[in-house]
């Protein structure tokens, strides 16, 4: 079991052969699976602060540490895909490349998104990734194969979204990671996993203080703060972190996908996922404005990794987007792990309750 916190197992290398490991939600797992390879979305375990320098993002650091560890806990990946979506991860790719025998692909995901050339670059990068995967042992996707896979993933995503109200925030995050680690043959099993998880979540408390969580990536061990929210009487009604619904791709247009599946992937992922690195970041601003208002949340918890400038800069802006109190929770800034964050969350909920 690849887990250091209570709950069900996260995707493990024991379950798969040589995976193609990726981190960013801007990498479509169906594109990896279409090459006959096993996608494996990496959510690092709790950040180990040992060896980390001041200024380093604990999440990026831990992702790099996981990918370069010996022996390799990820089972000697067939390939590693990292993205340029933040400076720290872009630079981590260089370190990973130098320290692992696995081939590393740094995918340029443009920060700008409104020009045809930026959208074209993402599509070109998908095509380049495809060639890279073939070079790493994958096969060229057959005619119609990608579109069929996209439909299967879409069905799984629809099921996951439908189940979300019955799932704890942590369980949703785990299942989202699991979906990103499914190959074509595992998607039916994923639907069963959703049912099992819903069955086990019957104990999820009704009521509570509705909260929205907003922010970037969270390591596995840090997901304890999602439990802390619920244990303290909060209920996550909007997860706009990287482990939540914000980073799901847009719904599939099956007809368009059968005509031009790569263009659909670009639309679903690049054109649609709002994030703090995008310029301008109006996609994110609009998403938060709409979803915070519609969620019924009574407060917002901004969860960010220490030294993450992109999300840090949102601390003040969030308050201007909605008339809700905002709690700024910084992860990875102390050896005590999430203890301090947990205490702050408890206090925040206590104040909101009164």
């Amino acid at each position, binding site marked *: 079991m690849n887990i250091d916190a209570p709950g069900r197992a996260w995707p493990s290398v024991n379950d798969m052969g040589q995976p193609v490991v990726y981190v960013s939600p801007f990498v479509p797992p169906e594109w990896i699976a279409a090459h006959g390879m096993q996608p494996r979305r990496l959510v690092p375990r709790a950040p180990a602060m040992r060896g980390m*320098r001041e200024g380093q993002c604990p999440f990026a650091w831990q992702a790099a540490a996981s990918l370069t560890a010996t022996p390799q806990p990820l089972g000697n990946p067939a390939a590693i895909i990292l993205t340029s979506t933040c400076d720290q991860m872009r630079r981590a790719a260089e370190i990973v490349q130098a320290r692992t025998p696995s081939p590393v692909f740094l995918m340029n995901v443009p920060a700008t998104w409104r020009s045809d050339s930026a959208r074209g670059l993402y599509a070109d990068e998908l095509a380049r990734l495809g*060639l890279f995967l073939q070079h790493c042992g994958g096969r060229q996707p057959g005619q119609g194969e990608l579109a069929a896979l996209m439909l299967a993933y879409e069905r799984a995503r629809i099921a996951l979204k439908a189940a979300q109200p019955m799932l704890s925030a942590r369980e949703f995050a785990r299942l989202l990671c699991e979906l990103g680690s499914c190959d074509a043959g595992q998607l039916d099993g994923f639907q069963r996993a959703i049912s099992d998880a819903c069955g086990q979540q019957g104990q999820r408390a009704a009521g509570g203080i509705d909260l929205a969580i907003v922010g970037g990536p969270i390591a596995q061990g840090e997901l304890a703060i999602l439990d802390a929210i619920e244990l303290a009487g909060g209920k996550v009604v909007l997860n706009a972190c990287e482990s939540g619904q914000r980073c799901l791709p847009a719904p599939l247009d099956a007809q368009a996908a059968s005509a031009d599946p790569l263009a659909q992937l670009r639309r679903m992922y690049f054109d649609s996922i709002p994030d703090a690195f995008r310029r301008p970041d109006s996609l994110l601003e609009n998403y938060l404005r709409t979803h915070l208002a519609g969620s019924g949340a009574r407060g917002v918890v901004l969860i960010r990794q220490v030294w993450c*400038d992109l999300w840090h800069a949102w601390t003040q802006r969030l308050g201007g987007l909605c008339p809700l109190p905002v709690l700024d929770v910084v992860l990875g800034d102390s050896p005590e792990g999430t203890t301090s964050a947990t205490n702050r969350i408890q206090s925040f909920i206590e104040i909101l309750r009164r």
Partner: protein
Amino acid sequence: MNSPHQISLDDWEIRYHRLKAGGLNEPWYGGPLSRHAGRGDKRLLSLRFDNSPPALRLWNFLLTEEERLHQARAAGGKIVGAMKDLGTAAVMAFSLPNVTAFYPDGAWWVPCIMEQGTGDLEVADALGIDESFCPVRAMLGAFVRGAHFPRPDLLVCSVGATCDDFSAIAQRLSSLGYPILWWEAPHRRRAEAGEAAVDLPGGLAAPAAQVRFVRRQLELVRAGLEELTDRKLDDALLAEGIAQANQFRRLLGELRRLAYTRVPCPLGALEMLVAEMLAIHFCSDRAEAIVVIGQLLDEVRRRSALGLGVLDECAVPVFWVNPVADLKVMNILEECGGRLCGSEFLFSHALDEIPADIEPLEALARTALADPMVGPASDRAERICRECRRFGAKAVVISRIPGASHCATESDIIADMVRNRLDLPTVEIEVPPICDADAPGIRTRLEALIESARQRT
């Protein structure tokens, strides 16, 4: 007093009046340096300056940029604020008549020069951009306060493979109602097998597809400039703009060659830092920047020919990586027995000549892709090693920028390559905008480095 020396601001006051009495000829922005300190540039009181008239002109040119920008605005010119790419967009803007470009990024030196007496950092704090960000956050305060430069008529900013600090701060600026024309600088990668590659300035290369992409991005910048000025920015104008930029870069290249290699050192580190900074946007006056750098080069040539310098002959040649937020550290290096013998201040692409034998926008795209910030740190380290060899460095200082997203990872990569390839001692220091409190520690580290380098030779 006429021999090359480094002198204090008080000494310059006396010397200035003697030079004036002797017939010193100055441009409109000339005058005693002390007047800048009187207007708030208090850090000048802590610095030691080169005592030559060309150095006086250099400092006066630097410290009157705000006046120059206001004059350009008053004369009906358009002002373009180029951000982050450090060199390329400014060359494009200056290609149009009646357009003045500057980098608001330069506000990062304001808290140093004015000894944090401006309130820029406090404004940034209040906007949620605290000290965990790089000192360039002073730019945000400067915009909001309407201080240090007039509000530009057009703001353009490169993003993509840039530091997250700057990207986040620029976005915060945009959210406050300052429209920005964003353009993408992708992470520079190596061409894959079978993929066409293009040579870039600085001995680099990139896939032809990436150059084409950047060229299309620069077309967006060109369109923005044309809309601003209602004038076509055609290839002839761009070619002339590139020629002017290259004239400056050639003069600076020769200045660097002499100042970094001649014994004794003909020009101090502080003036060399300022001279290199001019390459980014010519301190808002391209023609005058060429004159200023030309006079400085003449002085260095004269000193070199006479065997004169400002430092002891046994000063240890030190290569410097990254710009310093506090200019004072350049003096400290020399006080510790070192001399600058090369630099990589994160804008080496603004020092290299822009290719002049290809289409102008293609040339500018290649230059933009040669930005050390957009490529892997190992590319940057390779260049540093090359320059260390070229200039005969005996030690390397990696000067971290507080809060900068790139320093935490790239410092190790650079230091490892320097040690492995050149077997040179390296040291890391972190330089805040005012380093007085940290100066003893910085001094100790630099002294240890110089001592180590001396023992090896």
